[in-house]
């Protein structure tokens, strides 16, 4: 077992920061490649006109997931030492829904808005200013709903995997996710084609 490398080799904090810069470059690079730095591409997802967001996201998820499971299986990666976000069910659900509304209205999420800004999309700039404002409001008001913010801690320590919760093997869950993703990709191509045909028809008429 040799990964996560930073933990195994006791890497200095400065090196971790520097490596994160390079990982960030890869992140921004592929987001931009895929078109996620463009709010129009992002938003049309929610009208089934352009399924890029779904395609990029789910290809990334199944790539990452398969990689993690394989690396764990051959004993190279210790899944236990990977940091996972603690989930609190109720604020998670409300927060997710609010994020969704913001996504449809603003056309970005924080990561893609940074990419949008780097390619000089002016709407991304206003989105980022809005996000900072929203976070400011949240930070100022959270003491008033601290109880709700800390309610519904998932499992004992805040993280539980799907396989553990349902008592399945990780391979089976991964298989199901891949099947769902593939069906989704197939559906995406269909629905995109449907709207393309409709558009060209309209243009001819």
């Amino acid at each position, binding site marked *: 077992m040799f990964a996560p490398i930073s933990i195994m080799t006791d890497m200095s904090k400065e090196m971790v920061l520097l490596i994160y810069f390079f990982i960030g*470059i890869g992140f921004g690079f592929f987001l931009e490649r895929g078109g996620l730095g463009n709010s129009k591409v992002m938003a049309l997802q929610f009208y089934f006109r352009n399924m890029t967001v779904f395609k990029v996201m789910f290809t990334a998820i199944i790539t990452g997931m398969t990689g993690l499971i394989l690396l764990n299986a051959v004993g190279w990666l210790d899944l236990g030492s990977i940091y996972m976000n603690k989930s609190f069910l109720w604020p998670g659900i409300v927060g997710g829904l609010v994020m969704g509304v913001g996504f449809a209205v603003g056309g970005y999420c924080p990561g893609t808005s940074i990419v949008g800004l780097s390619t000089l999309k002016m709407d991304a700039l206003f989105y*980022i200013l809005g996000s900072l404002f929203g976070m400011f409001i949240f930070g100022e008001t959270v003491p008033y709903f601290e109880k709700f913010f800390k309610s519904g801690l998932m499992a004992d320590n805040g993280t539980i995997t799907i396989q553990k919760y349902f008592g399945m093997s990780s391979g089976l869950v991964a298989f199901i996710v891949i099947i769902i993703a593939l069906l989704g990709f197939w559906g995406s191509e269909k629905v995109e084609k449907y709207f393309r045909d409709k558009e060209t028809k309209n243009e001819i008429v």
Partner: protein
Amino acid sequence: MKKNIYSNPYLAGVGLGIVMLLAFTIIGTGLGASGAMMRTVVAVEKVVSQEHVDNNFYLAKYGGGDKNPLDFWLIFAILGTFAGGLISGALSGRLKKETNKGPRISIKKRWVFAFIGGALFGIGTKLARGCTSSVALCGGATLDLGSWIIMLCIFAGAYMTAYFVRKLWI
């Protein structure tokens, strides 16, 4: 069609997945964007009033006492994200000052709605403790149940809103 100039979304997705995997194997954490923004907010508040930051349990976590909220890997990840977007955009000739919007809305209105959308996302992401990158993407790949629930809620919220804001986009 304009979207054809972007590369194949599946290829971009595989690239993104490999980057995420690198983050997991090298450092042992995923990626995130909203954390860096929150830290920027706290850094500004800290300059204005240290006492105010110290008295708020949430802000104190980032910048209480002599903690520097900007001294954190998320900040460097987001600087990298900016550089990466810039590199890809430059290589494909997509560095252009513009505003992306639907055909039925003016540029100024689009800016206003971008701000409102950003503010809502900002509140939501802090409430759920993560944004699309950290929760949906990285949480999704680690098959974390809570993350999948939040991801589904994001999509549900967006699809439920889409009809009412269709004038913004189509």
